[in-house]
């Protein structure tokens, strides 16, 4: 008797709950567009936020809704965009150019000294909060690696000189490090750019730059005069080379009194 009773009660409970769940599954069925799942699987899955949404799943939902450009996934690039276009049945709208991060400071501790010793939290934002940062140059890299720590693609590492180095093979140009750097020394550029660039971020006047850094741009316009194509402009005491106009002739390199104009860093194919 006991046997049947226990069978009946546990079996009954099981049946009841099974029925309840079956009913609930039908009654509360959520109709999900199967394309959301498919698109989410195609995306890189780093949840980096470069598209403007909190995660890949939210981006996928908005693609299906049609409220966002399909090419907004920067890390995925052309390949991902093409496959999403295939799922959505639209013509490819991929951005042709790959984007990468570029570090605009070469002022390592050896050439750009500190104002004071800092023993706080190893984080650039925390260091900035303390009297505006320990580096004498108010624009230079603090070198505590906040940018490297936040890269979702493991493409940014701190080099031996204490400055971040971009791994161009891995970098997707998502721009997370740009937002993370409290001194704005990183920018996103196209990977197929060419010519020279000025790896400095200092908007200080020449006299100040000379005092705090051996490799900072002093904005004396020597390079502007040397450039035959008018590709270099100086704004706020900082020379900027327009890579669209630059033909890589190299005349600005010897003209620079601080010898800091470099070839842009490119991947080796």
């Amino acid at each position, binding site marked *: 008797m*006991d046997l049947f*009773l*226990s069978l009946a*009660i*546990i079996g009954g*409970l*099981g049946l009841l*709950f099974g029925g*309840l*769940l079956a009913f*609930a*599954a039908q009654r*509360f*069925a*959520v109709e999900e567009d199967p394309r959301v799942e498919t698109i989410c699987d195609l995306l890189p899955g780093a949840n980096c936020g470069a598209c403007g949404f909190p995660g890949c799943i939210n981006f996928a939902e908005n693609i299906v809704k049609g409220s966002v450009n399909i090419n907004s996934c920067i890390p995925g690039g052309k390949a991902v965009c093409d496959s999403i276009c295939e799922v959505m049945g639209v013509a490819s709208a991929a951005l042709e150019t790959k984007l990468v991060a570029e570090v605009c400071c070469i002022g390592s501790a050896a050439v750009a000294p500190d104002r004071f010793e800092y023993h706080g*939290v190893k984080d650039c934002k925390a260091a900035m909060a303390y009297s505006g940062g320990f580096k004498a140059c108010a624009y230079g890299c603090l070198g505590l690696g906040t940018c490297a720590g936040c890269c979702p693609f493991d493409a940014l590492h701190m080099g031996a000189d204490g400055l971040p180095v971009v791994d161009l093979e891995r970098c997707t140009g998502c721009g997370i490090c740009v937002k993370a750097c409290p001194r704005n020394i990183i920018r996103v550029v196209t990977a197929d750019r060419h010519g020279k660039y000025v790896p400095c971020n200092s908007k200080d006047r020449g006299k100040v730059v000379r005092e705090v850094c051996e490799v900072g741009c002093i904005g004396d316009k020597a390079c502007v005069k040397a450039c035959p194509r008018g590709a270099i402009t100086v704004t706020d005491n900082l020379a900027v080379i327009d890579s669209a106009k630059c033909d890589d002739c190299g005349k600005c390199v010897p003209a620079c009194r601080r010898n800091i104009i470099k070839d842009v860093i490119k991947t080796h194919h």
Partner: protein
Amino acid sequence: MELLAIIFVAILANNIVLNQFLGICPFLGVSKRIETSLGMGMAVIFVMTLAAIVTWIVDILLLVPFGLTYLRTIAFILIIAALVQFVEIVLKKTNPTLFRALGIYLPLITTNCTILGVAILNVQAAHNIIETIVYAIATAIGFTIALVIMAGIRERLELANVPGLLRGAAVTLVSAGILSLAFMGFIGIVTL
């Protein structure tokens, strides 16, 4: 007065995590950030109260009258699992935001031993339905408090200069031990 004593004992003096050592897994697993620990706490409060009510009803109406109290464990596990699944389905439809916020924690509660623990403790203490509900809510609040305090400690530990030897799991367990020691201080203030 009786109910106040239950609340005090369940939250502080006999905290489910720090004094009874149930639910250590989510206590260590979901206490990295205050935000997620609060989410987990809310899910536990919700599920624990529901589970305590349903298990109490099943125990009183089915198991005790038919002399089947030896089936308590399997019956309660069945109820808790089905209940969590049900809540998951309903929540997904009615409140997708909360569903996504709870994320993996909701299904994890199925195997959370605090839920089964509270259901069984209720039956053993012969609580009536009011006491059952109060005890379940108070226990879940105690769980949430333990989780949030731990998350606060761990958020600070991340910025602290911890000796290399202790970094990671070791310092977490040591702080959990000290926290438990602190909660032991409440024992004896109220006796049931």
